[in-house]
């Protein structure tokens, strides 16, 4: 059984990798297995975790959970064309709730906290002497301050990016590009190690080669 599982895993791994060459029957088979099994997997998980775990067990103590189930049932009315439009009610409930919840969440975490974090002194008498300790910190502080400021200028919608405003916005997009470059560079290595991990599985776990 263990042997079979190993060969199956290797078969599927190679099936996915074969896509890099081109679309082919092996990949299509792997894809079909993946889609079918995973859709089933998710339904099972939703059923046991959400329906059974959250609704069925909790409904005795928390009667309000019936509201969720009722909305869910309304959703299924889509299957009856004549009254399918009622399914817009749960949908609009979700849209309203998502909007309301995220409005305040994002407002607090993305606006308030970020502004607050950007309020800091550019210089301080506590910085030591020497280029590293003093100047580098001050330059770093200035970059954070000006970078955030110009980055926000870039996002302004109601003014054309022209003249001095345009230049400021340009600096802003450069700062944003450095940010993107940084997270790009930061991720490259970890992505490489993922692939090395799969090759390692094929060579050592499956083929038994010692690396």
């Amino acid at each position, binding site marked *: 059984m263990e042997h079979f599982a190993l060969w199956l895993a290797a078969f599927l791994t190679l099936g996915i990798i074969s896509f890099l060459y081109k679309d082919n029957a092996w990949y299509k088979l792997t894809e079909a*297995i993946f889609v079918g099994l995973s*859709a089933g997997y998710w339904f099972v998980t939703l059923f046991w975790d959400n329906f059974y775990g959250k609704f069925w067990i909790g409904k005795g103590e928390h009667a309000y959970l019936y509201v969720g189930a009722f909305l869910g049932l309304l959703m299924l009315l889509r299957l009856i064309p004549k009254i399918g439009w009622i399914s817009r009610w749960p949908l609009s409930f979700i849209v309203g709730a998502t909007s309301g919840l995220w*409005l305040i969440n994002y407002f607090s975490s993305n606006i308030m906290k970020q502004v607050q974090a950007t309020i800091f002194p550019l210089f301080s008498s506590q910085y030591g002497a020497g280029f590293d300790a003093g100047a580098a910190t001050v330059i770093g502080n200035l970059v*954070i301050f000006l970078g955030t400021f110009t980055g926000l200028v870039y996002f302004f919608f109601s003014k054309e990016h022209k003249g001095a405003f345009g230049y400021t916005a340009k600096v802003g997009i450069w700062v*944003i590009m450095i940010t*993107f470059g940084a997270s790009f*560079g930061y991720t490259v290595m970890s992505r490489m190690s993922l692939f090395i991990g799969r090759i390692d599985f094929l060579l050592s776990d499956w083929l038994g080669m010692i690396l």
Partner: protein
Amino acid sequence: MKRGVPLIITFVVGTVLIFSVFIPPMENLGENFTLFFDIIAVFAFFLGGGNLLRVHLTKLTRRKRDWEYSIVTIVGFFFMLACGLFKIGNPGDISASLTAEGSWFQTIYDNVFVPLGSTMYALLAFFVASASYRAFRAKNREATILLIAAFIILLGRTPLGTFVTGWIPDSFSVLQIPNLAIWIMNSPNLAGQRAIMIGIGLGVVSMSLRLILGIERTYLGGEDK
């Protein structure tokens, strides 16, 4: 009824949830919504899963291109459903943990899902390489900046960075690539992140308001059925 009621629901639910944050006796409303959502999602799956089956059954019965693979998908779907819903192979009865060791559900997860998912994820190594190559060829200033920053960070995370710039005297050590990488992460990167995050926050506030006020209503469909 068809558009009016949904618009009212969106408005009322959205407004109540916004205010609930400021009113301690209502502080659990947000969590309750999450619960409702999770429950609605189960019912909705009947629509999604039903659609998946319909698409593949149509493909199969009409002998469309690649119909053979649809058999695999359908069989796989029902197989997984059976394994999980009836907890086949689970030690104990139906109340046993779904993911108990030895259950078919977990075995398939470990031996089919994990290799499939992690291999798909691992393809990124190639795509990162091809994307970097394309960025390298791009001739505009923005792409160049992106690439230089990426290159410094990448070098900074490898011994090569120390090797190449180790000769720089300590008083200018910030110019050594590993230190420069840290500086980029802590200064310009941070500034960019903040500008983006503040922008996103404002975007969300504005879009949410448009939805709650019913100005944005494309998702509600038309007036007929």
